[in-house]
């Protein structure tokens, strides 16, 4: 998961994303960005999220943890 934040930044079209950043506070954040993030997480990590998961997660770190925990559950 070390490249998670890089991939997040790439798909969100921003320079960098830090652990403590709240995703919804980026000016670039909208439903299209949310879909792009969901698609990236599905393709890269095999985890299916819904838009509400992103909203509830809040920070990038919390999202990373959520993806991790769902991956563990699958294994």
């Amino acid at each position, binding site marked *: 998961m070390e490249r998670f934040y890089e991939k997040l930044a790439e798909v969100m*079209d921003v320079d960098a994303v830090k652990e403590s950043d709240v995703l919804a506070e980026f000016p670039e954040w*909208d*439903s*299209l960005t*949310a*879909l*792009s993030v*969901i*698609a990236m997480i*599905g*393709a890269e990590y095999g985890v*299916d*999220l*819904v*838009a509400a998961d992103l909203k509830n997660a809040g920070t990038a770190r919390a999202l990373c943890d959520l993806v991790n925990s769902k991956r563990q559950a699958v294994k």
Partner: protein
Amino acid sequence: MNFQFTHRKISGLLGIVPANARSFVDEMANFQFPLQRSLKLKEVMGYDQHRIVDGPICASDLACFGMEHLFRNGLLGRDNFDALLVVTQSPDYFMPPTSSVIQGRLALKHDMFCMDINQGCAGFVIGLIEAFMLLEQPSIRKVVLINVDVLSRKVSPKDRNSYPLIGDAAAIAVVERSADATPIHANLKMDGARREALMIPAGGFREPSSPETAALEDDGENNLRARDNLRMDGSAVFNFVQVEVPPMIEALLETAQWRVEDVDYFLFHQPNRFMLQKLADRMKVPYEKMPSNVVEHYGNSSGVTIPMVIVHNLREQLSRTAVRACLAGFGVGLTWTSMLLPLGPLDFCDLVEFP
């Protein structure tokens, strides 16, 4: 559930689109979004042009125009088919059925099984399943399957969620018996518990249209639409497609004992390019085997998009040869369905414009 058929084929396919083309760039000003964000949406989703009816054009207008084209050019005999299936969610009237309207306007014979099917994005595959079943009756020689929708008339021009992608179109497929004993496999699932993800809330008997249902409301993300308008929960639909469609195709291939490589083309419903490419990625299907260019040229015309993807991309090829096709439709209901079948050579495969 699974279906299996043999000795059935599509023998001809005609697409009908309104000549009236609108461009996303021209319509951006209607949306309450910064232009930069709208341009990003255009790029990611693959929006460009869409075809929508200009004025109060109805489903039967597009359908009758296409049928007359077939009659006039000797591609279909007026008395050579015995069933008329019309799949639409934008009927001319609540009653009578649009299939009866079309039968009457074309002065078709009375020995005719006319039926409307209320289905959307899964409507082409559902229509084929019904047509194949009707052909079990010896008295039915050919089935004319018409998919048609003019849903642009129900979408708010200020709803960036749905308006840029909507398209109006019709398609006529002639379905008949074939000497080919190759099994045609299909599968289908439905989930009415998720019915609100795609709906027109008002205008039916549950919530009749009124001045209140015509008032524009904000969906919370700057999209303005009324309860009389089509509304789509975009992220719920996206999630539904990504979660349900790949396992459905996997199960279909498994039943047929086919691998992804055995399929020449994945001819799927066309919600937008983004969703199709994500599906292709997930299913490990190369993009060239899954065309995703219907929305950028014509818009998403609900149950008409599978015929549109065929006539737009495979017109020449299917006039000469056959391909192994995997069709899939998914949407309103919710409904998701897929079919593996040999397609072509077709007696006709064309696209005409409704003036």
